[in-house]
Structure formats: C-alpha cells, structure tokens
C-alpha cells in the first residue's frame, strides 16, 4: 500500500515536462549573467585604460625646407613635460583629472603631422630625473643630422645619469618598421615633483614617415613599481601616446 501511494505521488518522468519548466528561467539567468560579465569588463577597461589629456595637437605648417636636396613641407610641434599631471601651467590644467603624483607630457599625448614632411619639435622639459636603465637611449637618434639642440647648444647625446625623459617614436610593421626617433631630454637640476617654473628647451627635427599610426613613449624609468616602469609609464595618456601621420 505504501509503495503504491509513493508511486502515485510522483509526476510522470518525461523529459519534455522537466525541461519545459526550467528552460526559460535558465536561459534568462544565463543571459543576464553573460550581459553583466561583458558590461563589467567593458566598464573596467573604460575606467582604467583611457586617460588622455586634451585632444590631438596638429602640427603647424610653416613653409617648405630642403633636407638632403629634397624639398619638404615644414611643420612644427610644441609641447611640454610636467612633473605633476594634476597641476596647472599658465593657468591651464595640465592633465584634467590626472594623477597628482605622476609626471606627464602635455597638453596632450596625441600628435598629428603630415607624411614625408620635415617636423620640427620643441619640448620644454620641466621635470627632474635621474639615470637611464639602458644608456643606449642617451643618444639622439633618427633626427636630421643626428642632433638636437638643448638650450641653444647642439648635442648628439646627453649624460645618461642626468635624464628627465625621452621622446622615443617608433614605426611598426604596418607603417614603416625602420622609422625611429629618440631624443633624450635633460633633467631640471634640483627639481623634485613640483613645477618650479624652470625648464630645459629641446629642439629637434625629423622627417616623418609614411601615413599611419606611430607609437611614442618615454624610455626613462620615471614611473612607479617594477623597475620604475609602472604608474605613468604604463597608463595611457602620461608618458606615452601616438603620432598620427596623415
């Protein structure tokens, strides 16, 4: 009698019935979890990876110049390096929302120059510095004449122990893999992490490559954590960026 009662209470075991009840709910839960996962990943990337200062700095055309017997369009760029990303310079925020303890290039890290043109760059270096971890970057490379001008003096290299930052641009296999420019920027003596108004003026020229996206970064270890290549060195918008050749 007992066995009969137990059997009669059990619903018929049909796969269709079991699946029919749980399928919509399971599908909805899976969909919600998947959506939440991907939205979360997206928000995480958005919050942590993109922190660019102002928009792209477009080079100013100043005429034509001759380099190695070839007449080229001549453009100029002017930007700075600062010890404090959250500070102001001439009343203008250097890096709106930037980390106050991090050095940065400014007013932007994105530059635009025309292809196959003579580009003259002027950088005011306001930051302190120290020693390179690879002295290969103490030499000026890839510029016109292999030289740069520091406070009016022509140089081919600087003391590897007195470097503030470097401006190092490289081509990629998608553009021109052999394109390379490296200019070491001397430190401002006696400075720490505050902008005391003193600066070093570095000027150099290079001939831009083919159209495409070129990456640049600083090769002086001015960041935090591992080998001083964390923090501003590994966060977009501070010590790295892109040169858009159009």
């Amino acid at each position, binding site marked *: 009698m007992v066995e009969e009662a137990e059997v009669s209470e059990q619903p018929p075991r049909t796969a269709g019935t079991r699946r029919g009840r749980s399928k919509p709910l399971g599908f909805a839960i899976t969909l919600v979890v998947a959506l939440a996962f991907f939205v979360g990943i997206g928000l995480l990337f958005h919050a942590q990876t993109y922190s660019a200062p102002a928009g792209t700095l477009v080079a100013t055309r100043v005429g034509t110049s001759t380099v190695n017997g070839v007449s080229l369009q001549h453009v100029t760029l002017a930007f700075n390096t600062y010890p404090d990303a959250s500070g102001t310079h001439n009343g203008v925020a250097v890096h709106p929302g930037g980390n106050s303890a991090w050095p940065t290039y400014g007013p932007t890290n994105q530059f635009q120059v025309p292809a196959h043109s003579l580009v003259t760059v002027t950088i005011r270096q306001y930051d302190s510095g120290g020693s390179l971890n*690879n002295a290969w970057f103490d030499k000026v490379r890839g510029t016109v004449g292999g030289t740069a001008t520091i406070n009016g003096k022509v140089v081919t290299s600087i003391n590897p122990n007195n470097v503030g930052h470097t401006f190092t641009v*490289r081509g*990629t296999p998608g553009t021109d893999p052999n394109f390379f420019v490296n200019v070491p920027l001397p430190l401002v003596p006696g400075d720490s992490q505050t902008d005391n108004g003193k600066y070093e003026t570095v000027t150099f020229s290079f001939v831009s490559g083919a159209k495409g996206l070129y990456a640049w970064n600083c*090769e002086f*270890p001015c960041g935090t954590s591992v080998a001083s290549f964390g923090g501003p*060195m590994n966060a977009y918008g501070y010590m790295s960026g892109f040169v858009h050749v159009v």
Partner: protein
Amino acid sequence: MSSDAPGVGEPPLLEPADPPVQEEPFFSRPLGKIFIIWLAMTTVGVLIGIFVPHHVMPTLLSHEATDVWRTIVLFTILAAPVAALVYSVAAYSLIAWRHRGNQDEPPEDGPPLRGNNMVTGVWLATSTVLVLVLLAWGLSVYSSDETSHPGTLVVDVTGQQWLWTFSYPGTGVNTRSLVLPINRPVEFDVTSVDVTHGFWPVALGVQVDANPGVVTVIRASPDKLGNFTVRCSQLCGLYHSFMYAPGAVVTKAKFSQWLQSQGASTTTAQAAALITKQ
C-alpha cells in the same frame, strides 16, 4: 529403413531450419559508418597538416624555422587519425543516437567498454607509440638546434618596455635592428632591464623569455636571405603590442658594410663578419 526412423504421422526429429539471417553489410552498421566518418576526417586532417602550415607560417629564414615547420606538419599528420576517431564517434553519436523529443524516455546505454581488454590494449599501445615518436622527434630537433658551433656570432639582446636593442660584442655596435649574416650560426644572449619580455624573431623559428637580471642563451642558423620582424611574446605592459624590431638576414659582405655604417671600424667589421667567437 531404420527402426529409429520416425513413423508416418510423427513429427520430424529436427525442426525445420530458420531462414538464414541476412548479415548487415559492414558499412551499414554503426561501426562501418563511424569508420567512414573517421576516414574522411583523417584525410581532411592529413591534408591540412600537409598544405596549411606552408601558407600560414611566416617566411622561414633559418634551419630552426624549417625544423619547426617540419615538426608542425608531422605532429598534425600523426594527430589527425586520433582526433578524427574522437570526433567521428562523437559526430555519429550525436546524429544517430540522439534522444529525440517525441520519445518519453532516453534509450538505454550500450554495453560499457570497461573490461574490454582488446580495446584498452590497442588504445594504450597506439598512444604509447605516438607519444614516443613525438618525444624522439622533439628531442632530436631540440638537440640539433641547441648545439654550439665554431664561428658563432654572438648578439646581446636587451628587452625593455617597449623596445629591443642589440649589441654586437667586440664591434661597439648597438642598434635597434637585428642584422645577421647568412650561413653563420648565431648565439643570442637575451636579457631584460625591467619586466619579463619574450624575444621572438618569428622567421628564425626560435623564442625565449628575456628575464631581468638573467642571461638566457638561444641559438639560430640563418640560411636564407630576407627581412623579418622581432616581436615580444610576453604581455609586458601598455605598449606590448608595439614592441617590434626590424631584422634582416644579409650576405656577409653586406653585414660587414652594415657594421661599418653603425660605427664599427673597417677592420673590426670585416673580422666580425667572418668570426667573432671560436
């Protein structure tokens, strides 16, 4: 007539034989169908192993890269029948033995394979032979690639975020381009000044980690002229994807000229183009 013979009207001693059972042809049975699927998948796998690597791999500029290519081809061909066996059984099971919605209860499982010594033995023996062949092949290739040769050119490789630099000891040449003479063994002494990078000149068929504070040695033997790219194979930070260096395998004469263009003296360059390490 024997006295044992059944009399008239008595039933015969032997029942009339059943009509002979028509045995189902092999290829109509599940095993035969699985065999056909396996054969087709194996053929496709072998063809992929023979023809696809040639099209998807970069230009092969060294003896080691050729070894890598041969290894990929061999391993793919050997793996094809094994993978096809798994996929063919799975595919046939999904198609033929699928529980359909109009049935109330799933069909009964087939008899378990556990205890079938024949199947277990064949599976173990085949797996053992395949693994031993792969091991012997791999050790042989690795051994030949790691042998130091006289006249080896030494190149110091330094990785840092996010550039490679190359130094040619004895010449004073430090560059960001990796230029190598043809038909000359090369020893790369690889290190890093910050985080771990991965030194990977793809066309040379070698790859090794660049660890900070440690020099790791890897060798290659460029045997074809051409350009290549050095990449970083370890996720090393923000601009890892831009960590490239241009490379080239050139004639010994051009290698000497290139060294001079990078600042080496004529004597040093000519000497380095021949032998820098005995």
